[in-house]
């Protein structure tokens, strides 16, 4: 099939529609507004619904309602908007409602700015709202992945009855690259737990209330079991030049693109370095990291935040090797050259 030059944000809209999603509820925010604009244009065309909600809070609760109705629904926002949605995401996780939430991260804290940052790692990967829950997080690094991982996100959401995040940054959203589109999904199966407003589903209940502590503990155990299952089945990562690597750089999103070029250039200089890019941030590629750690690879994590993913890497290597952080904040994207310089200085290579 033909390729299309398209922005990542536009590829998300197409991917969602090709995945059979027909309901979009959102609130405008830079740098994610293009997703809402694209959704407003394309969702109604194929018989779907686009609704600009009165708030981020309302938007995620509309998704909650629609998802309870057994259909594929989504919302998209950027960091401050995600903070507002956390209540609804906790409810969706508790009521086990599948949906897709896109976060095109921007600079924070507070109003911060609209430049790309990765400072939402903690609020997205660690659950973010109240209660014992986690949300699968897919981190695309190209326009193609903005489409294909959005489609994948809907499948994971339905498979595990869980909200799923697409976590990207302004660069991946704004960048145009060629995208190939798969065939659209048209016949989605009926969900036996959902309320379809018909006789067959009328005894179904969508709820996150378990008043009895033992019942709530049981529910939480069930959720944890589900997350363990997700950790077993759904890990995705990209390995680049890791076979003989002595040094491993890690990063996701736009950072991983910078790191790939840095690795290519350092390899030209005979430095044995490779890239490990988590595509899923939860589940986290712990085994892949640990295997490299016990081979005594030295790690450098590059993040556009105060160092959030690096904590997970350190936890994973269990002191078997060193894990350094190189970070930029405020919307500054590290250049290939500054990363190379840092690596050369730090590791004397």
């Amino acid at each position: 099939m033909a390729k299309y030059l398209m922005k990542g944000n536009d590829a998300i809209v197409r991917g969602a529609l090709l995945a059979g999603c027909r309901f979009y509820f959102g609130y405008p925010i830079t740098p994610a507004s293009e997703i809402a604009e694209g959704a407003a244009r394309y969702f109604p065309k194929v018989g779907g619904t686009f609704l600009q909600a009165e708030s981020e809070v309302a938007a995620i609760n509309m998704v909650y309602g629609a998802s309870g109705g057994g259909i594929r629904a989504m919302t998209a926002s950027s960091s401050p908007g995600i903070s507002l949605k956390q209540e609804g995401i906790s409810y969706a996780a508790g009521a086990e409602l599948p949906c897709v939430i896109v976060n095109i991260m921007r600079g924070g804290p507070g109003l911060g700015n609209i430049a790309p940052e990765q400072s939402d790692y903690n609020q997205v990967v660690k659950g973010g709202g109240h209660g014992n829950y986690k949300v699968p997080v897919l981190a695309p690094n190209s326009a193609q992945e903005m489409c294909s991982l959005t489609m994948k996100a809907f499948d994971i959401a339905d498979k595990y009855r869980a909200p799923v995040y697409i976590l990207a940054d302004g660069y991946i959203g704004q960048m145009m690259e060629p995208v190939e589109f798969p065939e659209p999904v048209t016949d989605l199966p009926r969900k036996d737990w959902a309320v379809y407003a018909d006789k067959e589903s009328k005894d179904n209940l969508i709820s996150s209330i378990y008043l009895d502590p033992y019942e709530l503990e049981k529910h939480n155990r069930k959720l944890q079991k589900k997350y363990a299952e997700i950790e077993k089945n759904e890990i995705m990562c990209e390995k680049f030049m890791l076979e003989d690597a002595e040094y491993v750089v890690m990063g996701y999103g736009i950072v991983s693109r910078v790191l790939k070029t840095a690795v290519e250039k350092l390899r030209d200089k005979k430095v044995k370095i490779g890239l490990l890019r988590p595509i899923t941030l939860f589940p986290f590629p712990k085994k892949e990291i640990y295997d490299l750690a016990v081979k005594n690879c030295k790690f450098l994590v590059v993040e556009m935040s105060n160092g959030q993913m690096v904590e997970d890497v350190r936890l994973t290597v269990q002191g078997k090797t060193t894990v350094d952080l190189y970070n930029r904040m405020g919307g500054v994207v590290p250049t290939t050259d500054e990363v190379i310089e840092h690596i050369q200085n730090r590791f004397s290579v």
Partner: protein
Amino acid sequence: MATKVLRKSHAFYDTYFRNPSPDKKMLHYCPGCGHGNVHKMIAEALEDYDVADKTIFISPVGCSVFAYYYFATGNIQAAHGRAPAVSTGIKRAHPDSIIISYQGDGDLAAIGTAEIIHAANRGECITVFFVNNAIYGMTGGQMAPTTLVGQKTTTSPMGRRPSNEGYPIKVAELISQLHAPVYIERVSLHDNKQRAKARLAIRKAIKCQVDKLGFSLVEILSPCPSGWKMDPVDSMRWIEETMQENFPLGVYRDLTKEAEPYTPEILNPTAEAILNLLDIDTELDFKYERKNPPEKYKNPEMKVAGFGGQGILLLGGAMAQAGMLENYHVSWLPSYGPEMRGGTANCHVNIRDIEVGSPMVSDPSVLIAMNRPSLEKFEQDVKKGGLIIYDSSLIDIEPTRKDIEILAIPATKMADQLGNTRIANMVVFGAYMGYTGLMGKETLYESLKTAIKHKRFLDINVKAIDAGYQFGSDNQAG
């Protein structure tokens, strides 16, 4: 002769199996509470209109959080105040459903104010039952937005003072200021006559949805003896004598006769139609012959810069599009100066034989400068042996670098001669390709098909490419 058998509505479960209490026949509400009355009136209406099977009941947060114990319908429990948003989502998903959004005063008139106003304002075809008992019942008797002036609660122990807490919110009046709602009434449960009126209002509000007329809301003044610390009889008297005065009963809006039924159009396109509707052309096949430019011009890392309004981003996009058509790996990344208006806009373009790593171009091998600030700003970044193309009709200085190739082209002047200065970008597009030999003209023409939105401008842009291409190849580096 037909006889009326008194029994529980079939819209209630016979046995409340979800209730953890050992008594599966009783409601969980306190003695004298109004919720039981309201539940019964709703359930009877759902049965009478034969819509219980397609009803979805939205339980709020508050005493009625467990409404799903009782209603033999689809049930969704919503977060505090969010029932109208949840209702919106499910109603849009299933337009033929009957959605009951059941809310208390804290839920609807405090934490969920935005949700109810906007659901009403959109005219969502849902039915809202607003149980106003002027207090937070479930959390133990705190002040509600509808608590009366002077009324003592656990969080207004001296009585509600307007100077500190403001006045009670009148929801029926407030919502009736909006254009979309079809039916709004305030009723009370304080005596038999009022309960009969409440029953009719509840039926009418549900019928309004059954007939697909639009948004309906019934506000119900309802006793809360536990919260008010009164016995049930005094509670009824308090509603009649005190609450009613603050919340006048009556119909605030009734357009049920005028409103037209609305049924959303159902579209269900085939897989093939979906691709077309998404502007994904499955038939696209462009044949090209890749050129073999000199090694130094391969894999360009480009920065294209100029004024906002010069079509800088479009030029970069056309470059990437052309590259993609010839099956190169490409990327295009916009980067606006903070001073976009009258300032510079620029974008980064990669056209590579192999996968593009970082899409950011900090040291370009090709700089296209369409205004003076861009040339001044980026000249020093260009890689040694790289190429600068600049619009010499707008830039009155020359690059100072001696270690790079330079192509000065009077692009804006040439564009003007062709009839429109705005196609200077396409003149440069042609010039770059003609100069380097990276791609043939056919590819550039093809790329225009997606880059140029208005087909009537295609011809003049083709002319611009031709003129630029000619200029570029005539001025190739010796």
